């Protein structure tokens, strides 16, 4: 094969201009580092979020205030479901259990320190099994709330950031009323939930002065029921109730099945991923321009060499091959370097996450990602080397031999 000499020529040419070659390689390293690193990072985060969502069983339906197409109202929506709404939900065919989730910020005191913390109320008796079995919540310390006792569960960020030193068994005061901390929850994955204090709904009504209603009722459907059918029935019932109440102006609501939530989040993260990786790709384009620049300079400097090769019988495709191989090798070197750097730093983030309770994260590293990155780097190298290679191939042998 001719390949061996091409290869040797390319290697030696790269070596002959060490600094310039390394700088060119560095351009690609930065690009591949950003693309592979950010892709791995975003993919890992997507996986983490999806894992949380998957914990939510398929038989759970969330009813949320606001229109699903309007994320903002959905997330900041006020107390939107009245008692009659909740009764309508409860009456709906296929609904097994309803857990009216509701929350409000209250002053919480622990060992002389007071903080305004979000309190979440839910009926402990019906709610605990759903949270534990369907949503995958667990405690890292202590126990779940025992019904009838003045106990609370705290999110895992509460003892770390809000009330430092708080442990299961300690006593805190919410709006002046004493409560025992029965346990600390494992991280749920989002900051808001992890910074919350959970208590029984009746206690919640007492402490906050809120009388009825809920912000986000959660429904568990009966065995054998189809989530889509129940969701539709819920929608119909709620609308019907509101119409009868003459409350047509009340803001919209969304009924979200586990599948729909999964799809929605997946789509949002997908868009974020495209934007992030797209922006990072600009770095690769800059790197490609670097290769092109280096290769053009190389063609200019090696005009004589090209003339010699042509004189001894090299055809245009031979010359193109020599230069493409060189550009491809620069790309490959950049790809390897970028991957090592990119995946290395993602691994580092993962390591950091293992020791940090703030978030769960697992680096996404797959053979496909590695192969694709390397292939992509080589492709970028070859593409940017193509025009310079073509110029080299089209040089006139007589003129080339005459150059110095």
């Amino acid at each position, binding site marked *: *094969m*001719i390949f*061996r*000499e091409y290869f*040797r*020529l390319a290697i*030696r*040419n790269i070596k*002959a201009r060490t600094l310039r070659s390394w700088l060119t390689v560095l351009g690609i390293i930065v690009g591949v580092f950003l693309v592979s690193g950010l892709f791995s990072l975003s993919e890992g985060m997507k996986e983490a979020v999806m894992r949380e969502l998957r914990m939510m069983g398929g038989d759970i339906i969330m009813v949320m205030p606001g229109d699903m197409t309007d994320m903002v109202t959905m997330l900041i929506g006020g107390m939107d479901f009245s008692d009659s709404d909740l009764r309508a939900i409860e009456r709906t065919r296929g609904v097994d259990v309803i857990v009216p989730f509701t929350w409000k910020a209250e002053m919480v005191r622990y060992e002389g320190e007071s903080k305004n913390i979000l309190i979440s109320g839910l009926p402990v008796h019906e709610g605990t099994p759903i949270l534990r079995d369907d949503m995958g919540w667990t405690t890292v310390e202590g126990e779940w709330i025992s019904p009838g006792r003045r106990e609370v569960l705290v999110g895992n960020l509460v003892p770390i950031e809000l009330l430092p030193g708080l442990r299961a068994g300690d006593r805190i005061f919410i709006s002046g009323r004493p409560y025992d901390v029965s346990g600390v929850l494992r991280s749920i994955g989002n900051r808001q939930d992890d910074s919350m204090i959970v208590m029984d709904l009746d206690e919640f009504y007492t402490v906050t002065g809120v009388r009825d209603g809920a912000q986000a009722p959660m429904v568990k459907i009966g065995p054998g029921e189809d989530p889509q059918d129940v969701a539709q029935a819920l929608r119909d019932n709620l609308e019907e109730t509101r119409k009868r109440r003459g409350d047509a102006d009340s803001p919209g609501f969304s009924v979200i099945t586990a599948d729909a939530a999964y799809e929605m989040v997946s789509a949002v993260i997908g868009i974020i991923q495209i934007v992030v990786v797209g922006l990072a790709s600009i770095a690769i384009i800059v790197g490609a321009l670097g290769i092109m620049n280096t290769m053009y300079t190389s063609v200019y400097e090696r005009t*004589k*060499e090209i*003339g*010699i*090769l*042509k*004189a*001894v*019988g*090299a*055809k*245009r495709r*031979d010359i193109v091959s020599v230069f493409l191989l060189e550009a491809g090798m620069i790309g490959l070197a950049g790809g390897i370097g970028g991957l090592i750097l990119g995946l290395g730093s993602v691994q580092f983030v993962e390591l950091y996450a293992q020791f940090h309770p703030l978030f769960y994260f697992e680096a996404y590293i797959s053979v496909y990602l590695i192969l694709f990155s390397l292939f992509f780097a080589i492709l970028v190298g070859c593409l940017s080397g193509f025009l310079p290679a073509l110029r080299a191939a*089209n040089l*006139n*042998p*007589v003129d080339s*031999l005459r150059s110095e």
Partner: protein
Amino acid sequence: MKDILIKTEGVCKDYLLGKVTLHVLKNIDLEIEKGSFTVILGQSGSGKSTLLNLISALDVPTKGRVFFDGKDISSLSPDQLADIRGKKVGFVFQQFNLLQQLTAIENVATPASFQGMPYEKRMEEAEKFLKMVGLGDRVDHRPMELSGGEQQRVAVARSLINDPEVVVADEPTGNVDSKTGGKILDIVKKLHKEQGRTIIVVTHDTNIADLAERIINIKDGEIVGNNVR
């Protein structure tokens, strides 16, 4: 009947220098026989190197026709010319023109690589030709590690690797001292005498001309003498 390897008919070569057209070669007719030793003699600027480029398939004429081994090569594509050069022409240049990144043996083997000769085979052949020019102990040296005379011998070995019909040399002794030049000419002579190869040497050195069977004198782009000795 004489066996003609290269023939030119009314060959002209013009170069455009800015707005001025330079008529470097004017109406050249010549024939070079197979197995002959021809010297093209002329002063610097006479057009002798340009003529060599045309008859060695490095370039095409502006006007007229060049036949190589009976085939008109005046209007071939760059790749077709490259094919003829690779298979049928061996080059020796004044500047040696070796690839600095490659060792002596790799330099010699390179032309064979473009003809698809397998790696082991071409390395074997390259070593054989390096031994023939007396550089059997220098195969792994880079051009920079060799003297001018040694580099030119590597170039001679390279010119032979594809077993060409003709070896063309452009001032082969122009960049070496006279003693080394003598050695190189001895090798070239041997190629002609012992192997019966067609040799064309371009030079301004009349001493080299003494070796030739035919001397073509060229002046101002025209043949002013074509003598068989």
